[in-house]
């Protein structure tokens, strides 16, 4: 139909018994646009968390990620958010070109009729909540085909269990920065364009070459030269792998003369050697293990139990005391499932023992204490505070 005129608008005001003198001179006539009747099939509202609005205004894109069996998440370049539909009992109409009183007041001359078309409407919108990136799948994918070295015949066959950065971006529910950071944390490396994790035995073989060389050259652990490592070990292993193992287990720096050195991470090396020893049996006599472990670490390094947080657990109730492998990365990613799993391994935990196994669950400003309050019940045993499950574990 024809658009409403000023005369018609004024007539309506009169019928409504509204005094034009009390109103701003400009008015909007709202009608439904040609697409609006279709409803919200193709158009929806997304409520933005702080920072996302600025990202969009800067022209940056966001990505919604999730396979059919996964709950969708929204990713900016460095953060991940859970998506949920929020239902209101009201109608939300979105109107282009609709002016606010401030905008109308700024344009004093206007007494126009503004014809605004409602673009669409909805009774719900997408709500976002910042969440931990879902990175457990990353390790799982890379463990499908760990790199066993250039001599492995496995790599010569065509296999499709190899992933590029793009592949990972489309499969992992996390932002690009979170994914790249995690790849660094798990010491992944790019081989022929694909991200790979080293197979543990091969990794230990590489580490052993380096520690033996450090020993035979009597280098200080804080000053291991890259150049000499490549010269001495280059005939045994690919140069990229030698450099990769140094990067994984050391901190790279350059001295005043421009030479590259590594300051070796004593804790990380001792921890890897402990894993190598522990993975051979279900559990070990603690004192026997500590003896063998100290003998196995490089000269000058001290093996300490606190290096094994999140890797192994000591059972102080057994006689003799024992130790066994328990890797946090093998445990479930979901909070409730993680706690269920921990409580089925051990009924009562001290805060000191359980912290390394729940630390990664903490949301942005959440503490371990808050997690324990939510998912566990505390009691005192022999004067020590312990935590157990809130519900019976089957």
């Amino acid at each position, binding site marked *: 139909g024809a658009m*409403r005129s000023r005369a018609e608008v004024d007539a*309506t*005001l009169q*019928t*409504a*018994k*509204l005094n034009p003198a*009390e*109103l*701003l001179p400009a*008015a*909007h*006539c*709202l*009608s*439904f*646009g*040609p*697409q*609006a*009747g*279709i409803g919200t099939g193709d*158009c*929806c*509202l*997304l*409520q*933005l968390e702080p920072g996302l*609005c600025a*990202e*969009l*205004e*800067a*022209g*940056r*894109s*966001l*990505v*919604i*990620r999730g396979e059919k069996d*996964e709950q969708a998440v*929204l990713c900016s370049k460095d953060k991940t958010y859970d998506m949920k539909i929020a239902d*209101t009992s*009201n*109608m*939300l*109409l*979105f*109107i*282009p*070109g*609709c002016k*606010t*009183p*401030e905008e109308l007041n700024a344009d004093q001359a206007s007494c126009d009729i503004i014809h605004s078309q*409602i*673009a*669409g*409407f909805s009774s719900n919108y997408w709500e976002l909540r910042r969440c931990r990136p879902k990175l457990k799948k990353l390790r799982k994918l890379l463990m499908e085909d760990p790199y066993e070295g250039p001599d492995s015949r496995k790599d010569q066959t065509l296999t499709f269990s190899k992933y590029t950065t793009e592949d990972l971006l*489309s499969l992992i529910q996390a932002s690009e920065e979170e994914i790249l950071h995690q790849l660094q944390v798990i010491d992944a490396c790019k081989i022929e364009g694909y991200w790979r994790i080293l197979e543990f035995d091969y990794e230990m073989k590489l580490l052993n070459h380096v520690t033996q060389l450090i020993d035979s050259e009597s280098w200080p652990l804080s000053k291991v030269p890259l150049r000499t490592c490549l010269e001495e070990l280059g005939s045994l292993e690919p140069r990229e792998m030698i450099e990769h193992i140094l990067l994984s287990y050391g901190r790279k720096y350059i001295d005043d003369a421009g030479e590259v050195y590594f300051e070796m991470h004593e804790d990380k090396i001792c921890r890897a050697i402990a894993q190598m020893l522990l993975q051979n049996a279900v559990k070990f006599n603690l004192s026997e293990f500590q003896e063998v472990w100290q003998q196995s670490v490089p000269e000058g390094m001290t093996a300490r139990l606190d290096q094994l947080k999140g890797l192994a657990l000591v059972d102080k109730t057994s006689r003799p005391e024992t130790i066994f492998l328990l890797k946090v990365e093998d445990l479930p990613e979901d909070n409730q499932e993680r706690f269920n799993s921990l409580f089925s391994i051990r009924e009562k935990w001290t805060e000191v023992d359980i912290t390394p196994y729940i630390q990664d669950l903490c949301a942005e400003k959440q503490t371990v204490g808050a997690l324990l309050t939510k998912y566990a019940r505390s009691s005192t045993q022999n004067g020590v505070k312990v935590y157990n499950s809130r519900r019976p574990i089957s």
Partner: protein
Amino acid sequence: EAAFLVRSEGAGGLAQWVLMELQGEVEPRQSGGLAGSLLGDLHYTREGVPVLIVGHHILYGKVVQLEKPFAVLVKRGAGEPGPAGPHTHYTVTALIKTKLLFKTRPKPIITNVPKKV
């Protein structure tokens, strides 16, 4: 493919739209559906109070600056059957930072009853 791009058309500056929140449902008066039909007249008092005349009702509302703005997403490239084909993506068409909230009960407009002659 399980990733859907939410592309911002922000390079030239994103459009700013306004949200209007009404109670209940919007129904077409005539049988032709909503497209093209009028909703009503929107006025503002000199104090900035939004006044909406819809049919025989007046609604008084409030201008609210949204603490969390909205993005209006439009799905594109959905030529494929099913929830999302490989080329499906969303475009951010506009941002909404302001809401006109109409929560009060609409006042009916009582027109004068003509006297019987």
